């Protein structure tokens, strides 16, 4: 292949190398990434098999619809801590050029803290939503998966994001204290 594929579809400040430090999530991060990847690929397969089955064999895949719904809920919130650790959440950066490295790290830390608090509230409310759903015993039609349990999983994954946000803030604060650009 002659050409280099783009590193990322949305290259943020982090990709330019002079932004606030990204966070490494180590082995747990890899497990999460592998889980998210598996779900994405499964969704792709299930949709394709479902469509092919419907048009060629006149037999759609039973439960494909629900499977996709469940995977969607999980994969979005599994991707959240991964995107957070790489500082990929879209932000307006027009102050960036005017700020020095230190100020940028402080700015990033502040953003992380705000996001962390918002995500924490959301995790809490999603957890309560899960409680309601579990109590009402609502299950999906074909696969019979309790919707409340999915919401619980989402809340747990959001909680992971909260941890990652606060950890990122800590790392950014440390970088601000250390001062000079890493390069």
């Amino acid at each position: 292949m002659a050409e280099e594929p783009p590193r990322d579809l949305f290259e943020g400040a982090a990709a330019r190398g002079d932004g606030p430090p990204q966070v490494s999530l180590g082995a747990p991060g890899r497990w999460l990434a592998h889980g998210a990847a598996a779900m994405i690929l499964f969704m792709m397969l299930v949709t394709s098999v479902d469509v092919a089955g419907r048009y060629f064999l006149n037999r759609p895949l039973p439960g494909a619809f629900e499977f996709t719904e469940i995977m969607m809920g999980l994969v979005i919130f599994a991707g959240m801590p991964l995107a957070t650790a790489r500082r990929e959440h879209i932000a307006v950066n027009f102050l960036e050029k005017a700020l020095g490295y230190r100020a940028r790290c402080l700015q990033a830390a502040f953003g992380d803290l705000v996001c962390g608090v918002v995500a924490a509230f959301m995790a809490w409310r999603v957890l309560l939503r899960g409680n309601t759903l579990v109590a009402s015993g609502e299950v999906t039609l074909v696969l019979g998966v309790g919707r409340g349990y999915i919401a619980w999983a989402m809340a747990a994954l959001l909680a992971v994001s909260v941890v990652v946000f606060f950890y990122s803030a800590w790392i950014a604060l440390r970088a601000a204290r250390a001062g000079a650009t890493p390069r």
Partner: protein
Amino acid sequence: MSPWETALFAFAALTILMVIGVPIAFAMMLIGVGGIMLQLGLTPAFAMLGQIPVSNTMSYELSVVPMFVLMGVFVARAGISADLYAVCNAFLGHRRGGLAMATVVACGGFAAVCGSAIATSATMSKVAYPSMRAYGYHPGLASASICAGGTLGILIPPSVIMVLYGIMTSTNVGKLFLAGILPGLLAIVLYALTIQFLVWRDPAVGPRAERSSWAERSRLLTRVGPVVALFILIIGGLYLGAFTATEAAGVGACGAFLFALWRRALSWRAVLDCAVETARISATLFAILIGALLFSALMNFGGLPRALQGAVTSFGVEPLVVITAICLLYVVLGTFFEELSMILMTVPIFFPLVVGLGYDPIWFGVVIVMVVELGLISPPVGMNLFVVQSVLSIPVGTLYRWIAPFVIADVLRLAIIVLFPAIALIVPRLSG
């Protein structure tokens, strides 16, 4: 508080948070929930915070987002951009300015399967720029044609912005995609004419390359054949009503996966990377969607859409004036703000107004996407300008000067689509 005050305070607070660097998605969540709390109290605010993230991710229809993102990631990984460019060159390169035109057409082709303006310009910068420079093209013309061509990524289907617009407004995503086709082709034609004009003014900026033989052309065509087939499968399926947009996305992702395998561009590691990247991009997109839904809930509770509609009706403003004003507002805002979130937080306010005036929701979606495209290449902060400039490291001044004619072409196209909505609407109306 009156609707206007609520909106003013909310947007002011949001702007402050965004400027000090809080990620847009979470800034919108904070203002949305905080505002609802002040307006209606704690209970409804917290109830929405628990409900919206659950019900708007666990959705079959919304799987269209990660699947089209995955398709784009696979196609980008498969390394087709060089081949696409070679094909376009073989057909256009011998003309004056032909390589720049080939760039625009190749961008359109890449965009057709990729769906991201940034990825299209970043990829094409690496592929097309060296070749144009080798033939003596002016760096300004070369880079500007990449910037402009790159914006086609969000107009030519599939397009993430269109999907999110469709979700926010309950507009049929498949029809939105079909509506993007003719305006996309119009864009390519207008960009080509712009290049024609630039080389007519000064032939030295875009000299001719050698003519390719038909044998060479057909050899190159077969290399990109599968991608063209994939695009035709998706769009054809949507047109004939054989697929929903969601199914098309799943099939498209699978097709792109097989294509990348066929090109031997995928190791297991690479497949994993593509999928993880897709999960991350999807997470950021859904964070923005959740934020925008909470923010627009605040606007709705505050009553801004109704107040705006009332004001326009009572003053008897011409519909065309309203549309022009909205476009101008977007262009001005778009020079400062990130486009996707700008659209998502304002669409709930303007959509009822525009549809109330009798405009087609599908047409408005196309118009909005074109305004975003314009924002992507408008100095000083067009995102595509940043991307191309950082990949190619050319002087900003040169790029600004050479992008101007393309910006004019975009404004012209916007005017054409506003005055002749049929160009956008004919394909979706004819479809099954």
